[in-house]
């Protein structure tokens, strides 16, 4: 089994797709969260000097992933918090995450487009034949 975890952006004509891949659901979801942030800012410009916490419940893994993305969007949009590190733990329908980053500084972070929300379009939580977790979603920008 491949143990590497990574994220990527997927082509979509009007908006943009995000995808996280990892050996476990936790890592895949964390990677997708980083892909989301990378739509807005270059992750390398974001220092990890503060943390925020997310705690969610839900038994449908897709809905839980959907809610998690929207919580991250809320952090950026309402609290002006940008991040470059994510630790995610999903157990028994409960998702707990530590989000590592700092307050948005426009001059330093040079943010591009803001993400408005996660959609159900392309929303997917699955395992490939090697057991790798792949989670993806199209986000509205």
């Amino acid at each position: 089994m491949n143990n590497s975890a990574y994220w990527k952006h997927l082509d979509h004509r009007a908006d943009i797709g995000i995808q996280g891949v990892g050996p476990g659901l936790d890592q895949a979801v964390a990677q997708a969260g980083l892909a989301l942030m990378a739509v807005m800012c270059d992750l390398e410009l974001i220092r990890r000097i503060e943390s925020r916490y997310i705690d969610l419940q839900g038994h449908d893994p897709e809905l839980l992933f959907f809610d998690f993305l929207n919580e991250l969007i809320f952090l950026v949009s309402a609290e002006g918090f940008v991040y470059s590190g994510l630790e995610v733990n999903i157990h028994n329908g409960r998702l707990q995450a530590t989000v590592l980053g700092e307050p948005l500084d426009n001059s330093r972070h040079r943010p591009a487009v803001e993400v408005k929300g996660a959609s159900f379009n392309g929303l997917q939580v699955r395992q490939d034949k090697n057991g790798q977790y792949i989670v993806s979603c199209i986000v509205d920008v």
Partner: protein
Amino acid sequence: MSMQKPVRTSSYIYRLEPEGPMRVPGFIFADDELLADMEADVFRQVANVATLPGIVHGALAMPDAHLGYGFPIGGVGAFDPHQGGVVSAGGVGFDIACGVRTLVTGIHKDRVLAERKALADLMYQNIPAGLGTRKGLKISSSEMDRMLAQGGRWAVGKGYGTSSDLEKTEEGGTAYGADPGAVSDKARKRLDRELGTLGSGNHYLEIQAIQEIFDDNAAQAFGLRKDDVVISIHCGSRGLGHQVATEFIRLMVQESSRQNIRLPDRDLACAPIFSDTGQQYLGAMRAAINCALANRQILAHLARETFETVFPGARVSLLYDVCHNTCREEDHETGGRKAGLFVHRKGATRAFGPGHPDLPSVYRQVGQPVLIGGSMGTSSYIMAGTSEGMHLSFGSACHGAGRVMSRKQAVKKYPGRQVIDHLQKMNIEVRSHSFKGLSEEAPEAYKDVSRVVEVSHNSSLARKVARLKPMICIKG
């Protein structure tokens, strides 16, 4: 549902026959070229919309249609509440009441050309834009309630603009039936210091020259003279509207399954208009419309003040303000009778024809001004609503160009610096908060807006009045 190809039934209308769970046909307004440009999934989305309960006449796609969530962007659907009709949060979209507002300045383009760098710098300084600007208004919770209930009227009451602006705004500047109580704390929090800001992505403020007049009579009624300059603002309800959409799309997914509504696509999640969820959404969505109207009213005021600083004595007046992501209760004739319908327009502009009682008296003879935004560096258009459009599309027309290239591809292909140089060669001053944002919005990433407008005109959805050429573009 099998994937059928739309069949041409008249010069600019293609039809999808109702089959399987479709309750009505699909109608796509296009020519062969625009139709070929549309992804096959757009037709699937039109067919999906046609399956929703209570839909009347047909599921429609405007000439700028492209792939959306649930509904295509450029999608129009009208629902009869007395036939089990539904309201769909996805059918309105994430940026509730995103729209365009155009102001007439009465100043000749040569005067603006001479001052264009100074004007661009000052606009850039005075119009808060970009992601996370936090340079907007800070308002108390009770003030927020009043803003969400009254929209543009609230903004004018606070000194942003004049009451004559309200006459030139859809619904007189206030979406009635708004329920501020249905807007969550989270949605309110996302508006913290964001009211009176432009946002990012495809939102902009442009100073444009009127390059061509197609319809003298309507141009005169709209106060448009060739070579004069206008100001156009494209933006929406900011984070508040996005959050309302997010929360209700999720809620409606659960509601649809509770109501046993079979959804071909979860993004089509909806609720019966006569249901608690449906009513709550309508109340929250109308509050978000008011948020967008207040936002554009404030921005228009800032732009007007800025313009009048550079050109003392200029009289900057509002031409009109249109929303292109809404669901509105309107009276329409369908099947030989008049009915109150809930018309979803997602990436589509209301385009009421001459004589409509909702139009301000100065425009009633010629029809509603329909404001079509182009992409950066390309033309924008001003059109007018038609009587034919009232029957063809519930009084709706296109809203803009529509993307043809993904953001990812555009970033690879058009570096931000190159976009600025290219536009400068065309005598367009650009000010932007983000190079990457500029790449994503490169003009080449969009369809040719002129073609979209041409088909809208030829199919009588709306008629051409004037073409605008950008001179200054402020981007988020």
